[in-house]
């Protein structure tokens, strides 16, 4: 078998990889909207802990796979205006919905009816985006478009230093936050 897998053989793997992702999101309790809302109220750091761990474990592994020629990077372009406005809209939507897209989809399968309604809302949002895409493409995407930039190339700070720094900052701030909450 040659990697990466392509064509029809890849399709069942989509179900398998999705299954593992959905399983882990449920086990992390992120299919419970109270856990997401708890993070936004800064009362429960489950979401942040999960994300930072995934970024560091995933990032170090993918860095070595990439160095060994076993994985290609897929960097999304830094169209800074679109990414910034998109991030703010996403944050507003997430606070009202109580889920991000992945956890909302997973929560739908665990019996959350309002998560299902939000998934239908997401389809409506995607349709609205598709119909405004011509305008977005000419008016928004080209503004402050820096291309597919990575932080190590931008700053000269090597990849592994970023992950080490992230571990230190996350560990220190989580430790301080949790201690404050327990005392």
């Amino acid at each position: 078998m040659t990697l990466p897998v392509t064509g029809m053989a890849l399709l069942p793997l989509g179900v398998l990889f999705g299954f593992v992702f959905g399983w882990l999101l449920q086990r992390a309790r992120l299919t419970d909207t109270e856990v997401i809302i708890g993070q936004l109220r800064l009362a429960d750091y489950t979401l942040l802990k999960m994300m930072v761990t995934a970024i560091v474990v995933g990032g170090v592994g993918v860095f070595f796979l990439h160095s060994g020629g076993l994985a290609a990077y897929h960097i999304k372009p830094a169209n800074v205006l679109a990414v910034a406005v998109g991030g703010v809209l996403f944050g507003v939507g997430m606070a009202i919905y109580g889920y991000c897209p992945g956890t909302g989809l997973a929560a739908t399968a665990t019996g959350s009816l309002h998560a299902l309604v939000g998934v239908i809302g997401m389809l409506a949002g995607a349709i609205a985006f598709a119909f405004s895409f011509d305008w977005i493409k000419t008016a928004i995407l080209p503004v402050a478009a820096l291309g597919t930039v990575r932080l190590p190339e931008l700053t000269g700070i090597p990849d592994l230093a970023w992950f080490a720094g992230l571990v230190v900052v996350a560990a220190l701030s989580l430790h301080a936050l949790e201690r404050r909450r327990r005392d």
Partner: protein
Amino acid sequence: MASIDAAQARTIRRTRIDWTPYWTGAGIGILSWVVFAVADDPLGITTALSAIAGFAAMPFIGAEAVWRNSYWAQDVPSLSYGSLFLVGVMLGALAASLSARQFRIEAVPATWRRRFGGSVTRRFIAAFLGGAVEMYGARLAGGCASGHGISGTLQLALSSWVFTILFFATAILVGSYLFGEGRVRP
């Protein structure tokens, strides 16, 4: 004795650590290695979901209009790896919730109910609008909390770090305003 009390307190504090977010996070990190190497397609949700939205739009605007659309032309609605990944996410979450006996029908979550009351209609309207705004933002930015927030940040992509910091900060501001201390009894 005070020293024993301090030691006991430390033990209690240690045993209180919940490792679940760390091992699930590590699991998603390892899953990222596999999908990068095997599928050459990082974990993500909204790119595939917007292709599915193309199908959802067909009964309303006709298949012709979907195929002519410049956005769906670059992300063709199809039975693909990405859309099957979404099916897998739902199956995995379903299996996990059933095996943990945590499958539960929920229309209005408790925190929402305490703040905005028990109206199902009101919660559904909010969820619909929230989901729509969230998705529009994700498509504008080219990814969501998975595609940017995990897959993009782990590649140290500038776009993903800008998106993730901004969405997290905004969600905390809006979430604290909607559900913060004083508004919701803990």
